[in-house]
Every structure is written in C-alpha cells, then in structure tokens.
C-alpha cells in the first residue's frame, strides 16, 4: 500500500502544474514548428516534416524529459536534503526506488506521447490517426521513456550532479552515433527506438533537424533485436539501480558531525 502511495505521490509531484507549464510550452512550440515546416521550406512534404520533427524533436523531448524527471527520483531529493524522510520510511528501498522511477517514466512517456500527438495533428490533421508511423512512434516512445529513464537512473545514482552527463548523452551521443556508419547505433537507445519506429529515409533530410532525427545514417537494427535490447537495458539498469540504492548512504557533506 505504501509503495502504491509513493507512486501516486511522486506522480502528483512530477505533474504539478508549475512543472508542466514549461513542458506544455515546448510541446506547443514543436507543434507550431511542425505545422509551419512544410510552408517554411520548399519541397518538404508532410512525410518529410513528420519524420524530421518526430525524430529530431519529439524523441529529443523524450530524452530531455527523462533526464530531468529521472533526476527527481533520487538525485534531487539528495540535493534538497529531503531524502532523509524517504530513507527512514518502512518501505524496502528497491520498492521505493522502483515506485518513484515508474512515476517519472510514466510522466516522461505521457509528455512524449502528447508531443507526438500534437505533431501528427499539426501536420496531418485528423488523418494523422491513419498514419502507421505515428502508431509505431507511440510504441517506440513508450518503451523509450523506460529505457532512457533506467539508464539515467543509474547515472544519477553513480554521479553527483549528473544532469550534464545525462544531457550530453541525450543530445550528444544519441544525436551523433545513429548517423555514424557501421554498428555504432547498436550502442544507442535512439538507434533501437528508430528500429521500432521504422522511420523511412526521406528526401530533404540534410540539415540539423535531419541529423537530430538520425536521417544521415541508415538504421540496420532489426525490430526484434531492438525490443530485446531495450527490455534488456531496462531490466539490467533497474536491477543495478536497486542494488546501488539498497546500499546507498546519505551523508551530506556539511553534516559529518
């Protein structure tokens, strides 16, 4: 019962209106960009626009929201020194960690799904629901929220002030590696998500948005391998995070009295 409450409470905390305003503004901004992309550049078809905005922005919103929301699971509590209340509750630490992680992953997933919905409506209108790629994107975004979250959770438990590392991973490695030739995309989360989303190679994909969408490389990961790899990453990272958190000692630097 306590663990369910921890999940509900964390969900409430992460989805507070004050926190959500910024995310909603970003999603609206992406929607506006998507709606105007075809008119802004010549020869850009609706499919081109969708693939580039979805891959280049919606999946980045997923990575960014995962990084920020996962930080709230433990790292933020440590920084704000409120973790002491969490650690002295009669809830097994792994259960506490997983409940909080689940809440953060759900919020990140909902934000990404909302962004995908806004983009498809902005580009295709109601016909967007007939778009097969949109539904594949939803599946990829859903698993992606948990995969990114699990990786970032381990990073936040291992490194103090881990946000720069998470952001570097999300926007550096995850943007560059899928565009590289060879098998480098196997060691990215984005590469596996694209294998599930199966975004086609589109024309007019050169440029920063195309690069962010991984359009400069060719995705060679089979879909079933991608699903297996992502589930594996989630399981291994969460198990490792539970082991770390179960042995975690909270010692604020100025509090060694």
């Amino acid at each position, binding site marked *: 019962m*306590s663990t369910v*409450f921890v999940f509900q409470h964390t969900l409430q905390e992460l989805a507070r209106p*004050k926190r959500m305003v910024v995310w909603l503004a970003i999603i609206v901004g992406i929607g506006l960009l998507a709606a105007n992309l075809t008119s802004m550049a010549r020869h850009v078809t609706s499919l081109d626009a969708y693939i580039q905005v979805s891959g280049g922005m919606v999946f980045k919103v997923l990575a960014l929201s995962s990084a920020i929301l996962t930080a709230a699971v433990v790292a933020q509590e440590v920084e704000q020194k409120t973790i*002491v*209340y969490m650690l002295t*509750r*009669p809830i097994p*630490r792994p259960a506490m960690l997983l409940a909080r992680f689940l809440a953060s992953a759900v919020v990140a997933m909902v934000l990404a799904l909302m962004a995908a919905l806004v983009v498809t409506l902005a580009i295709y209108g109601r016909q967007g629901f007939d778009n097969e790629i949109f539904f594949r994107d939803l599946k990829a975004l859903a698993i992606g929220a948990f995969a990114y979250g699990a990786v970032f959770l381990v990073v936040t438990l291992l490194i103090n002030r881990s946000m720069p590392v998470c952001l570097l991973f999300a926007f550096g490695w995850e943007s560059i590696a899928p565009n590289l030739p060879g098998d480098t995309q196997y060691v990215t989360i984005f590469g596996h998500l694209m294998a599930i989303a199966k975004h086609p190679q589109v024309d007019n994909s050169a440029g920063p948005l195309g690069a962010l969408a991984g359009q400069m490389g060719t995705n060679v990961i089979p879909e079933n391998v991608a699903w297996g790899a992502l589930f594996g990453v989630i399981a291994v990272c969460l198990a490792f995070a539970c082991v770390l958190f179960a042995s975690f000692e909270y010692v604020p630097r100025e509090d060694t*009295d």
Partner: protein
Amino acid sequence: MIEIKRASRWYGQVIGLNDVSCSLGPGITALLGENGAGKTTIIKMITGQIKPTTGSIEVMGYKPFANPEVYKRLGYCPEIDAMPEHMSGRAFVYTMARMLGMADRQAKLRTEEVLETVKMADRADRKIGGYSKGMRQRIKLAQAMLNDPDVMLLDEPLNGLDPGGRREYMGVVDGLAKRGKCVVISSHILYEVEQITRNILLLHRGRLMATGDVRVIRGLIDKHPHRIRIETSEPRRLAGLLVERPYVMSVKVEPGDRAIEIESKEPDRFYDEFPSLALEHRIPVQAFSSPDNNLESVFRYLVGK
C-alpha cells in the same frame, strides 16, 4: 532498545565516531557534545542512514541500515530544516503518514492528532516555505510521532524554538518518555539538556567521554567560572547591583559602556534571579549570551589537558 558495540565511523580520512559502546533504554537520553563531536553520526547510524565502519549497532534487535522493520517502530526528527517547501505542513505530515503504511482515513486522523499535539493544527495549511524555524521543528516532531514510535531520535530539536515553544516541545517529549519510549536527544547546550534529562552521553571529537548522570557533569562545570555577557545601556548601574550577589565572582564593564561581562560559579542561580533583578531595578537588557564554552572546559578536564 539500542545497543552500540565498539562502533567507529570514518568519513574518508576523518573519523566521525571512534570506538563507541553504549546501550540506551527507555526514557530520555541526551547526546551532549560540541559541533563535530559525533552526535549526528551516532543518530544517522541508529536511524540506518549510514553503517558503522567497524563495530555494530542494533535497534530493537535489528541491524538498522535500510531496515523497514526498524523504521516501523522508529521516529526521527533530523537536524536539517530541509522539507518540501511547496507543500503545506499538513500535506507533508499526511504524506509521511501514508508512507508509514496508513490508509487514507487513518493517515488523516493521525495527522490531525499529531498536529494538535505539536500545536500546529491551526497553521498547518500554510506552505512550509513560509514557516519559521520553530514551526519547522514542530512539523518535524509531528512527522516523527506519527507511528507512535518505540524509539524516537531528535537531532538538535530545540534549535530555533522560543522559550514557550521549548517548554511545549519538551512536554511532548517527556510524555513519550513517561510511556516507556526510548527518546534520544542531541544537543550542544548543557543547560538545555539539564532541563530534559539526567541521563547523558557526553561525546567529544568522536569519542564517548562520559556517560551517566548529568549532575556529575554539572559538578565538573561548576568548578569552572561561567562567563555571561549582558548588553545594556546602563552597564555601570547593573554592575553595581550584580557585584553584591554572592554567586557573582567578578564584573567587568566593556569599553564603550554598552555591555558587561560577569563570572559566576553558580550560573543556574544567576539565570534564575537575573530576570527579576533586571525588572525590579528597571535595567534595560538588549542581549544576553555566554561567550564561555563550558563543555570545552569539561572536555579539557576529562582528557586531562
């Protein structure tokens, strides 16, 4: 209820606690020591936030580190004031109650009970961010009492409380002790501790220097003159009045005629009588402090320096 056996704790190269052994039972025990003495380290070990580097700790028969069985019967009021600033005191205490496993209705009822006990029920809907230090102390105590714990740890709980608040706070703690609970209170102020309990653990630089009755410590302290500084606009008149008192050994008017410093071998008697003396003779008092760190004197005595 609490057994500490040869526990030591290192923070890298720094020792926080050095080979401490003791057992704590029902009633109030005060952990007395200066800043850096190891009080918070002991409390963090008992609450299972950190492990001893060597030695062992048992709370109600369990090793406390990350042990839910211990937390079911343990209440903890941390020294740090950090709390979720955006939440109201009531919401915070309710959240803590739910995390203790209480159902919604029970958590609401218990929240109201403990808020009444700490006299915060009428102010608990305000956001914690706007609370004074004293209000935060009360809310911290309220959340620690939620599960009617058998072991209660209060880390510097009287910091920031006004005299009335201290009396109320200690009344609540005393009530817990009278019901057979084990209450551990840390403090670096001897006079504060004396009003709470006679049972103390005296820590100095990570070592347990003395245990037992606070009156033994009091005896040691009374061998050292106690200095008290009083800021007043009439220092010479006050000095004249004080020098007549048998418990005042010396009076010095500070340069600038804005304060005096006295030495007393009976500080308790001084503290008892001074307010009425000041009122009777209409002496304005702006500030009142003790620059003399008595614990340091006692520690020097105990370590034979």
